[in-house]
């Protein structure tokens, strides 16, 4: 908690400096939060290219709105809010959904592989490498695929809660849902993931 408060104070100082005209301070904010935002976007979209594009878009929006930021909430909360909304908008866009439909049609041929109990994202690597790392990558890919199949609201709350490790009250501020709604959506998402990952992560 102390760490959080210190972090928030540091952010508030940087924001104040930016609003007073020090535009260069924006680079520091980007460097501080780029991994978090990128990772969040990746978990939302499931692919690196989209995640890169949306992470950039998030920081562009932050830059354009930072002058008007009233500092009522913590900067990190506001940043998460922008990132989550940007990703949700993209997920809901017609172009993205159409593209995903095409990819799904192409991927139908691999369903047979799944039926034969072969992991879908098995990455054969001819080069010798740590088996553990390979195993982690495979597991990551399988889990990400399951997360992609969640409904948008459940996906949002499960990513913010279990992957990003945010507290419930922060998730409430970011999403605008009520506390009870956040908890129920998290529980529902977990049970869905458990069903989807059965037989892939565990027997």
């Amino acid at each position, binding site marked *: 908690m102390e760490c959080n408060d210190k972090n928030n104070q540091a952010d508030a100082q940087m924001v104040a400096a930016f609003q007073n005209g020090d535009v260069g301070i924006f680079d520091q904010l*980007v460097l501080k939060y780029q991994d978090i935002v*990128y990772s969040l976007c*990746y978990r939302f979209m499931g692919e690196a290219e989209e995640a890169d594009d949306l992470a950039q878009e998030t920081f562009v929006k932050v830059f354009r709105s930072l002058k008007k930021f009233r500092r009522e909430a913590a900067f990190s909360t506001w940043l998460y809010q922008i990132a989550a909304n940007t990703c949700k908008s993209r997920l809901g866009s017609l172009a993205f959904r159409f593209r995903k439909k095409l990819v799904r049609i192409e991927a139908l041929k691999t369903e047979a592989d799944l039926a034969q109990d072969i992991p879908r994202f098995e990455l054969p690597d001819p080069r010798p490498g740590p088996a553990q790392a390979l195993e982690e990558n495979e597991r990551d890919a399988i889990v990400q695929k399951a997360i992609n199949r969640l409904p948008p609201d459940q996906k949002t709350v499960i990513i913010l809660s279990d992957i990003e490790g945010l507290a419930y009250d922060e998730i409430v501020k970011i999403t605008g849902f009520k506390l009870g709604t956040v908890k129920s959506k998290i529980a529902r998402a977990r049970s869905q993931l458990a069903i989807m990952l059965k037989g892939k992560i565990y027997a």
Partner: protein
Amino acid sequence: MPENFNRQNPEEEIKNLLSSLKAKPAPKDFLETVHARLEKRSILQNIIAALFLPLNVKLPLELAGAVATLIFMIFIFNSVTPQIVNVPQPKLPKLLAAKAPAQPKIKAAPILAAAMSPKPNASPVDQPIEIALVLTDEDQIQSEGELAEEKGAPPSNLATISTAKTAAGTVSISDKQALSISSQIQNLVNLVGGKVNSIESNTGNQPPAINAEIPADKFELFLKELKKLGKVNSSAQYISLPNTKIVKIKILLPQ
């Protein structure tokens, strides 16, 4: 794969599984790409973003503003534009449409007025044109009041008047008739866009007269209408000068 996966509480394990996922690092040139993106946005994009984003808020507001402006402009236009109302021309009283005399009509042909004008040095347009109105026996001019009176009048009055007409070629008229003629002539002057300057009463030597001014382009029309009242004699001839706008006339009424 985690071998000690807790099947009794899968949700808890899912939570642990998700929290164990490694964070994805941003590309190394992420900051540069963000800067490039910031600079790339054109002025037009900024304008469009400012005007239209968010769509669900700004578009309805702008539409409402456009509609309100349109209504306001229509209101202003209707207030400023004078309404053109077609005013029907007042009809001349029945009496003015009386039969024209059978005598040959005198045309107001434009001829040189210098030979006819009483003041050779004076400009023709300065002198009023004298027009004498003479009633003949074929003219039946009656005021509205007299119509009712003469209905019951004894035939002998009409015969006396008729005799007098035959003898002199003109008819003597009563005061009421004179008043009626005078008012009709005044109406006629007003109808052609002129104005009556003065009315001279009967002084014994001089007949009653109406001094008026009428637009030069309406003079012929005025004469034409006046002839419906009776015979018209003019002392001077009207000449149409290019710059003449107003013509002074003096209409000598029948005594």
